């Protein structure tokens, strides 16, 4: 059993994912480097991983977000950027969580669209999405049609 000594305890790491037709991850990185103050930035396959004191990281992210608020997405990460325990370079393959992000990245354009739209459309114009676990009741007119279709 080996003792474990954590690196940079007390800091946070967040992923910044860009899903945009106008900014590339590397442009985002350049901008981040320009305005970074004492935070660690690493470019990843889908955006940036940023580590530092929570306040510094969040303030940097807030500035980055202004570039294209509806197309930049953020989530927490447990590991430091480039942590050898998670980096695919050390394991032959991506960590399993990568494929989850890979999946959600394909959904991001719809989210971006939603973020933009809800600013200009009143709530009353937007129907609620169907609640997935509830089975919808059969429409009474449809039921009538089915009954009629059964008649000889």
């Amino acid at each position, binding site marked *: 059993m080996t003792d474990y000594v954590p690196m940079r305890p007390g800091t946070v790491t967040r992923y910044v994912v860009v899903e945009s037709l106008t900014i590339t991850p590397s442009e985002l990185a350049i901008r981040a480097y320009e305005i970074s103050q004492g935070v660690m930035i690493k470019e990843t396959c889908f955006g940036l991983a940023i580590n530092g004191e929570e306040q510094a990281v969040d303030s940097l992210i807030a500035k980055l977000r202004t570039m294209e608020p509806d197309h930049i997405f953020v989530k927490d990460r447990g590991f430091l950027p480039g942590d050898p325990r998670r980096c695919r370079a050390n*394991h032959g393959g991506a960590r399993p969580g990568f494929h989850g992000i890979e999946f959600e990245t394909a959904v991001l354009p719809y989210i971006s669209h939603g973020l933009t739209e809800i600013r200009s459309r009143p709530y009353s114009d937007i129907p609620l999405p169907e609640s997935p676990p509830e089975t919808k009741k059969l429409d009474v007119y449809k039921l009538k049609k089915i009954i009629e279709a059964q008649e000889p």
Partner: protein
Amino acid sequence: MTPPVRIAQLSCGPEYSGVQQEINEAAKSVNGEIFFPDIALKDIIKDFNEFGLDVRSPDLKLAIARAKALVEGRIDADAVFIATCFRCAEAAIVRNELRRYIHTHSKLPVVSYSFTERTTAGTLLTRMEALTTIARRRALLAREVQEGITLGVDSGSSTTKAIVMKDNQIIGTGWQPTTEVLQSARDVIAHALTEARIKREEIDAVGTTGYGRFLVGRDINADLIQEELTVNSKGAVYLADRQHGPATVIDIGGMDNKAISVQDGIPGTFTMGGICAGASGRFLEMTSKRLGVDITELGPLAMKGFSRNVPMNSYCIVFGTQSLVNALAAGSSREDVAAAACHSVAEQVFEQQLQEVDIKEPVIMVGGTSLIEGLVHAMGELLQTKIMVPKHSQYIGAVGSALLASGFIRER
């Protein structure tokens, strides 16, 4: 240094059970390197759908897709390690099907294991060693004939065995219960050498196997120190003269059991169980003590009895033995009790281990327990086949070691 053997891991749960580090360490200690086959999401979906086993757990879907990428050669590996949580039915189905799929459609050696949070690198070591040996030492394992004069020592948990071989013949044997590991080894070696009328200096090469293989191997300066899965497979097909084609090797040992599916003398898939004493030779030892017979007499006694006449409520070495004692008290014959004990061990090995390997004929039983006729008979009934027990089967590990050690003579 030779490059590490690349072992592809297909798994669900080890990281969350706290045992991934143990897996990594076990692999590292035998110069293996665990890696996770890299595939894109679209291939995961496609491969999973094509494989057709519609499981719910995403990590099992990933494991299935990774297995497919390995079999189809899209990702290179030397060996495959499949690991899922113990007691997960969904994962057990995937584990079995992937093992079978990889075994049938590729030449990759596979070992599958179901872990708990208590699994340690030590538990995994023998399996990993076998896996890397099969991947790395195919040339060594291809040996079919013993040459020169070689010594093989099997330092097992219950007994220590030694064999001296010369020009493809067994010329000396030694056998005794394991007490002090090194002394037991020295004693059986001395016995085997005397029987063979060979001096220690005349030995061309030495191999060791079994639990004490490292300790004994260092003590007698062995050329080959090798785990018992590959050694016993080699020894079994050699003694049974079934070196080509498929075979299944069953070794019910003192501390653990091995079931190995062999192709041309090389293990393809194997299981090693060692959690329950009730499924081991120890159970039969306890039974023979209770019946007041020597362990060598238990087999013939069992052959005269009917196991069905004795109700066994448990497989456990404690409670199962209690059932036997109760049966005796209720008037059951010693023959029936002996038969029931043999059936109990055979059935437990059958239910818990043989389901994890594909049984192909011939089935060869080896190890000390293969001399217990009643046990072999019970196993044969369960498997519906006539089981082979080759001559010298109790010396299996020592024979395999002596055979493989002759591969080192020219190297000297």
